[in-house]
Structure formats: structure tokens, C-alpha cells
């Protein structure tokens, strides 16, 4: 009797462990662009979160994907201090896998964030944003801040908002009269 119970328990533990491993490590898409710091899994999460926070269409044309937020995040990660990099990675990991334990709506809500449907991702992030728990809200703000850094550094986004930096130089014209900085101009590099 005891050995049967232990055997059943062992099978259950193996099954749950396998399920968690598959959910955490399998099935991420191929990298879209060569990245220096973000892993394939992290890049998949950043792309998914960016597409949710900055969806296609609407009042500002480029989506999070079009704004190449994952590439920007990768470039940023390379430059930050190792401890900060670790914290950013932990944040990505936390939000990516939280839905394995606190599911998104729907019977298939027990998935990694990046494997969820767009409406489920939206609901999951809304849960973080409006949580009654301060640390959860803070995690959302941190994530959104990281992605917003990428979105609002993308030249087409800044041009569309009329906020592209001007060409500024000592003794030059006032910024309001100066042309857009070449790096942000439509014809720029």
C-alpha cells in the first residue's frame, strides 16, 4: 500500500516536473534578429509583452514589434551593469512564467505569457497593472518602463508624435526653429 502510494506520488511529481519543464523551456520561436544579450526565450517574452503594451494600429501607428523593442532592450542590456542586467532578466522571467501558476483567463490559460493568445496576454498584464498588491504593480511599471524606453526611442514613433530631437549645437538656432536631428530624420541613417 505504502509503496503504491509512493510510486503514485513519484509519477505525479515526474509528470508535474515534465509539464513545468516543457512549459518553461520548449517551443520558443526562432530569433528575429541577431541579439547579443537577450536569450531566445527572453526575446520571445519581450516581443510578446511589447506587442501587448503597444499593439498594432491605433493612435500611434507603429506596434511594439515594428518599433523593434526587443532589439533595443538587447542593446540596453549589453550596456547596463551586471547586477541591473540580472534584475531585468529576473523581471522578464517572473512575468513570463507567472501565468503557469496564476493562469490567464480561459481553460488554456496555464501557459507561459509568450504562448498565450493576445487577449489572454492583455488580461494577464492588466492583472499586474491593477493589482491590489503594490509589488505586482511595481513589477508591471518596471516592465512597461523598459519597453517604453524602446518604443519611445524609435525614430518613426518620435517623428509621428512630433517629438523627434532637433539638431542642437552651440550658438545654433533655437530648438523650435532647428531641423530634426539627422539620426531621427526620415532620411537619416
Amino acid at each position: 500500500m505504502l509503496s503504491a502510494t509512493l510510486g503514485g506520488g513519484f509519477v505525479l511529481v515526474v509528470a508535474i516536473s515534465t509539464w513545468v519543464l516543457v512549459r518553461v523551456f520548449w517551443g520558443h520561436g526562432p530569433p528575429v534578429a541577431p541579439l547579443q544579450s537577450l536569450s531566445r526565450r527572453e526575446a520571445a517574452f519581450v516581443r510578446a509583452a511589447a506587442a501587448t503594451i503597444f499593439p498594432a494600429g491605433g493612435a500611434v501607428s507603429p506596434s511594439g514589434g515594428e518599433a523593434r523593442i526587443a532589439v533595443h532592450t538587447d542593446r540596453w542590456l549589453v550596456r547596463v551593469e551586471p547586477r541591473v542586467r540580472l534584475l531585468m532578466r529576473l523581471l522578464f522571467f517572473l512575468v513570463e512564467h507567472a501565468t503557469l501558476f496564476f493562469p490567464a483567463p480561459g481553460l488554456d490559460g496555464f501557459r507561459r505569457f509568450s504562448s498565450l493568445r493576445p487577449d489572454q496576454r492583455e488580461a494577464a498584464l492588466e492583472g499586474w497593472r491593477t493589482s491590489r498588491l503594490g509589488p505586482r504593480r511595481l513589477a508591471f511599471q518596471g516592465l512597461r518602463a523598459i519597453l517604453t524606453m524602446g518604443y519611445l526611442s524609435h525614430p518613426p514613433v518620435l517623428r509621428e508624435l512630433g517629438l523627434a530631437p532637433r539638431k542642437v549645437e552651440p550658438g545654433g538656432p533655437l530648438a523650435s526653429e532647428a531641423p530634426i536631428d539627422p539620426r531621427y530624420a526620415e532620411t537619416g541613417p
Partner: protein
Amino acid sequence: MTGAVRVFADYRGDSVEDADVVVVGSGPGGAVVAKELAEAGHAVVLLEEGPPFTPDDFELDVAISMARTMRESGLRTTLGTVMPTMQAVCLGGGSVVNSAICVRAPEFVLDEWCERYGLRRTTRADLDPHYDAVGDFLGIAPTPEAVLGRRNTLFREGCNALGYSSEPILRNVRDCRGSGECFTGCRARAKQSVDITYVPAALRAGARVLTSARVEQVLVAGGRATGVKGRFVEPFTGRATGSFEVRARAVVLAAGCMATPVLLKKSGDLANRSRQVGENLRFHPGVAITAFFEEEVDPSFGATQGYQSLQFLREGYKLETLWAPPAVLAVRMPGSGHALKNRLARLPRSVVWDAIGSCNRSVGTVRSRRRGFSPRLSWRLDRSDVPILSRALYTLTEIAFAAGARGVTTGVQGVPDEIHSLDAAQVLRNKDFHPADFVTGGNHAFCTTRMHGDSARGVVDEFGRCHDVENLYIADTGVFPQCPSVNPMWTGMALAHRTAASVSDAL
């Protein structure tokens, strides 16, 4: 003899220097001390952990800019109440990336300092000559009308409509181009940051300036400071290479109110008989509104922070206009998805105004870590200080509606994402908020090596002299005994100017 700033590429192996005075930190405090002492004829070595920046080095991408110019890549936060706090690591320190706001500490604040901390010579009348000396040298002047931009003039209109006092901000800026880029470094070189003012003056007077030089220990012999030692560190990677030692008759620490206590702790808990090193950490927590108008505002044009109201200082808050890279401003914007995009699309018709709170009951600590030189910061926004922030947000909202705003966001939990009338804003006055409800930022930090007339209760006296160690001085905002209620740079520089005189007298 006029020298040049030495940079990382100049160093070959280890080095030993001798000087009358070694100054640690080239920010507003350290640069003033270095220039004044060099001009008084003393041999000065000025050490800076970060590299120098020229306009070509300034990055417009704010994330990359922060990673290059700020400690902990610009993502340093306090624990307890989680709040971002930025400290620069470059020649010129915070003056390179701040908004150049210059305000003298109000008389009532300095009187309170004197009364509560046993200070006898730190009234406004005592400090005014030092404020004047710094102000004259930097050319501190009111923000000109031509570069106010609509973002600043709308604030003025709102204040006028309500009968609140307001004024153009005094700044250390000459020939401002109104680019609103103070935060990522002034490409127009209009901001008179100390790397292009005080440091060159110190060099002209013969000071030696070493950048990429991280001080790791203050040397002491027989109860007297005798110099410092440290390592040369590669810019942006922090990789340590050769070591250096500077032997001097006096040591001035001006590394900032977070790095200075860490250095003292790492030097064998130096100058800490009072147990006040690293204690009493205070901030001016900042909150902000985004107000949306029907008219085009073009908020990116104009002095970054060009207008202010000092009307509410006694109630604990100061109001200012603000601009920063949109990615930074958007952090406080509520929402996600299309709701967020809708708000971003209205940015050209929006203004951001902020308030800094004099939250003296909210205190924390700076501790050193076993490894490395980054501090461990702990700070809590005290519940009794919360009404200062909510009232400040209400006043900003009031000014915005008086100026014609159609909607206001505060980013505060428990307040509607967007407020469309002053009636709806009453929640800011009536609700009992929790500290975690606010999105705050605290870049003004003080008090971790506070001055006190009683050596048992403070680290330095009012002239910056350490009570416990001879020839050791502190000249950064850590010496403030309380929040100054206004932007701290000018007060820190005035105190540093006075400290330089006391160092010179002692040599």
C-alpha cells in the same frame, strides 16, 4: 601651470601623487572646493570615478544615456518604499545631467537647521556671500522669456489665474537653445555645468584632475587623514586596472551623499563615533502630473525646467515645470495597450509639471555592500508625509485646469486614470493614501553625513570638518541636516565654497 584632464587611456600601471589637498568627486561640491583651493595657491588633486563627456558623447536615447552617465545604469532604487534615484558618474557629476535649477535655501529652513542642529553660522545671511560667489561665477540668471516655451508659460498662466506666486527659474545656463535636453546632457553647451566651468578654472590654477579614478579608501595615520588610495576603472565597464595613491595634507570627500558614507564605511567605519554615517537619508520625493490641452504645446521646446512656484514651501512642497525624454515621462502615464497609445498621441498637446516634497519624516539609510562600492539604500516614505504629495498633486491639477487643461493624469493608485474636472480631483485631498500608491522619484538626496554642532550627533561641523578625524572634510549634500525644501545644488555649492575657505585656513 595649466594641466589637462587625465583620462583612462593616460594611465600606465600604478601611480602615486603628492598634494596639499585631494578632493574626491568632481560634482558641484568637489569642483568648487578644487577651484577655490587651487586659486588660493594650494596643490590640488581632483579625483573623479567617471569619464568626461563632450557634446558628441551625449546619447539621445535615454536608456543608453543613463547607462553611460548614471550609477547603476540609472536604475538605482531604494528598498522599503521602492523609489528610483539617479546619481551621475562623470566629470561634473550631477551638474551635467540636471536641469540647472538654482534656488537659495529659504531663510526659515536655514533657521530651523541652526536651531535643531546646534549650528551658529548657517543662517541665510551667513551663506549669502557664498551663494553670491557661486552665482557670479556661474552666471546664474532667470530663464529668458525666449526659451520658456508654451509648457512653461501655461504654468505661469495657471498660477496667475489662481493668484499663486510663480517665477522664471534661476539657472546656471548661458545662451539656452530651449532643446529640453538637460537630462541627457546639453548638446548646446549652454548649461554651465561644473565640468566646463569650475573644473577648467581649477585646471588653470594648477589643479591636477584625474578621471576614471575610483577612490576605495581614505588613509589615516595618528587620527589624521593623510590621503586616499584606489583603482583606475575603465569607463562604462567599471573594470579595475592599476592602482593609485594620493598623499595629501587634507582630504575633502565630495562623492555625493550615497558614495561618501560608503567610502567612510569601507575605510574602517571612519569618522563615525556619532554613529550617524549613512543614517538619516532623506529625499525630496517627486510626483508629477501630465495635463492635456486642446492647443498644440510642443512640450519638447523650452527650458527643461523654466518656471516654478515657491508659494507652498512652508506646506512642504515646491512646484516646477518639467521636461525629460518622453520615455521617462511616460513611466508615470497610466494604462497599457491602446489606452496608453491614445495618451502618447496627445503628448504634443500636453505638459508635465512636478512637485518635490520636503518629506523630513521619511528617513532611510545608506549601507555598504560586502563586495563593490554600490550602496544598499533603504528608505521609507512615512505615512505622515503622504499628504504633502497628495496636496501637491492637487495644487498642480488646480493650476492645470486654471490654465485650460482638459484632462490630467497623476499616476496615483486609487485616482481615476484621467481626471477631467477639479471636482474629480478632490479625491487627492480627501483620500487616505498609502505610500505605495504614488509613483515617486527622488534625485535630491541628503543628510547621510549630517552637520551638527554636537560631535556626538553629527559627522561634520558646519564648516565641513569631520568631528572625529583631523584634516578630513565633507563637501556634498550629505552634510545637510534636513531637506532644504528647494533644489539643493546651489546650497551644496555655497556650503562647499565655505568649506574650501576653512580647508585653506587650516593648511
